[in-house]
């Protein structure tokens, strides 16, 4: 089970939880299962997110592995200037 951290008011989308445990193998798994388990976050996921996995910001790489001890943070989509 991976440990997924939820931030501040994002928690409203996850029944108020600061962290959730989820059985996910990779980023694609995560992005598929999150809105299934927590429909409130679907809008945010669809608008586009970046996910930090073990300190690295991952934008789209579905097959980026998530391990049981991975640090996973869901973030707004990172852009640049």
């Amino acid at each position, binding site marked *: 089970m991976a440990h997924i951290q939820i931030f*501040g008011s994002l928690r409203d*989308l996850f029944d108020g939880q600061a962290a959730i445990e989820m059985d996910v193998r990779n980023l694609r798994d995560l992005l598929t299962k999150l809105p299934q388990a927590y429909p409130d976050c679907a809008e945010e996921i669809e608008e586009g997110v970046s996910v930090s996995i073990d300190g690295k910001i991952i934008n789209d790489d579905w097959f980026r592995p998530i391990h049981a001890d991975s*640090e996973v943070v869901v973030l707004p989509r*990172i852009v640049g200037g």
Partner: protein
Amino acid sequence: MSEYQAREFKVLGQRLKRPDGFDKVTGRARYGADVEAAGMLHGRILRSPHAHARIVSIDTSAAEALNGVKAVITRADFPQAAKGYEDIQDNCMAGERALYDGHAVAAVAATSKRIAKQALKLIKVEYEVLPHVTGVEQAIAPGAPIVQPGKVSKRVPEGFSDNVVRYTSFGHGDVEAGFAKADAVIEREYRTEASHQGYIEPHACLATLDEDGRGDLWVCTQGHYFIRDMSCAVLGLESANLRVTASEIGGGFGGKTTVFVEPVALALAKKSGHAVKLVMTREEVLRATGPTVSTYMQVKLGLNKDGIITAAYARLFYQAGAYKQGTADFGAMPAFAPYELENVHTEGLDVITNRPRTASYRAPGAPTACYAAESAIDEACLELGLDPLEVRLKNAAKEGTKSSYGPTYQDHGLIQCLEAVKDTEHWNAPLAANQGRGLAAGFWFNFGGETSVSVFLNTDGSVTVTEANPDIGGSRASISMMVAEEFGINYEQVRTTVTDTGSMGQNEPTHGSRVTFAVGMAAIKASREIKADIQQRLAKMWDVSADQVIWQDGKAHCTDNSKGIEPMSLPEIGAIANNTGGPIGAHHGANMEGAGVAFGVHICDTEVDPETGFVSVKRYTAIQDAGKMIQPDYVEGQLQGGAVQGIGWALNEEYVYGDDGRLQNPGFLDYRIPVASDMPMIDTVIVEVPNPGHPFGVRGVGETPIVPPLAAVGNAVSRATNVRLRHLPMSPPRVLAAIQSA
């Protein structure tokens, strides 16, 4: 897994000349407005004079009747935009309502610029003027005119108007508990005005589009794939049918990552059946492209007597222009990113107003938030009598620190940057009367993203690198250098060119400080594939196994000395390519994850004329972790350019709106970017902490340099005057008023 392997570099770190330089110093380089086509028409756009108005009717008949006019278009000539692109289309050409002063409402294509200009005067638009709002604080107040009804996201707190459309927050710990432990709690409000990227080249393009939906677009842009995809989504075209070629680009800084005139030129080309060139005037650039946010920011900071930050809180209202944006997120995330904090909470709120749709500007969102945070830290230092450098060192984020926006940091160079401050002559130099010294830290994420590169070995042994990211800061040179390094050959043997969308797979734009990192990494990987291919071929030729062929000093060597085989150079290998299997080349397309964060620390000395409020920057030093430097001149250039942009934002750059909602200063005369005589030399100190995510340790460097200057200048001015300035820009009237009211 680390991509980075420590090694001795031969090419990297040298100050080599850019391949595009010769054309740029002789005037041969071709920018957006520098090409024409046979039978070309000139496009021009009619813009709303109102900040907010319903478009009752548009009568284009007189314009169409003018001799030489070949097409007139309005929103009615655009199809329904693809899902998610509605705002982009509406910003290119207004639909039911004009949402800001300068919003496009119609466009013409004519046989000359003069006729096009004349035709605009013949278009009759009937407007019903609606109430408008341009200020962020006015816009959030209940009862404010609503710019775009029905856009409010679920989580926006109560108590604001419906112009507050998006809310995010970050942080960890318990800030209230943190404040309770503090010896001093600083609670302040800061404001900043909108600035513009101020690239010297106005947007320009040349478009053709046939009836069957096939077209070509020549355009100055940071990302021709984005331009292609957005134009197609807005015009109902297929990406493969629109080939977009990026011209040389005369500056972008984030402002050329989206479409403004391109879909309009394409629509005019389609309707007229001719090529259409569309070049913005400077006034149009300032009125109708994307400036940055203006802000209203609340910060609360708790420190104990030892200088440890016990809690940090910020609430950031970001004025996003007339359409929903997410920039406030990128203020809320990096505001306190340089620090290891037990308790931190940041909130970002996006506010829409009757202003142009904001676009990215170098680390979009971060400079203003860091201005608020770093100013508050400076205020706390003054209140507690603490040294601003020591406080930053004590609280600095390290490898393994849980960042204020969530992820745990990998290796980075913030501490080294702060330590470097101590060693500068600047930090230890005395100050004269009316002078003050400011210090500030800053952060940007950096990223990689989708990247496609091809590398070819030519028959003469030279190496061609084909990529598709417009080169703004010298990336062709840097990429050539990395490929030369990888092959062990001279820089002069490698030529990197930027190609069109019809010749290369998808690429993110040149943004996010990504190109040297991501394109460089893709080029290194393609080079490695070529080397592996060569190993296979030579193994066959030499009748050895592939692992007996090694690459050293620019040549393939056989490790089996008994064979007496002479090493082969690239020219020798190129010459036999067709005999050993055919042309040698490799394409590498990948999603280049693994960009490393970049921290910077700036020191600024200002002198303030107490009688007029005039601020002059006397001395400036920018310090940054660049990972591994490829071309030091270009790294320094990024730091210097970013710093001066930040200084301009801090001192005199400002969008000034009248009560009528119209922009008062749409020109370089009164939108005051720094001129040469305003600036001192900008000293730089480059710290090199290799990024584990890149084979050569490269970190993006382009965006971080604009993050610290706002606060560095602000802190310097406040220390020079003994009055805290909390509203940027610190133009003379604001500074003088602050001094006089103190």
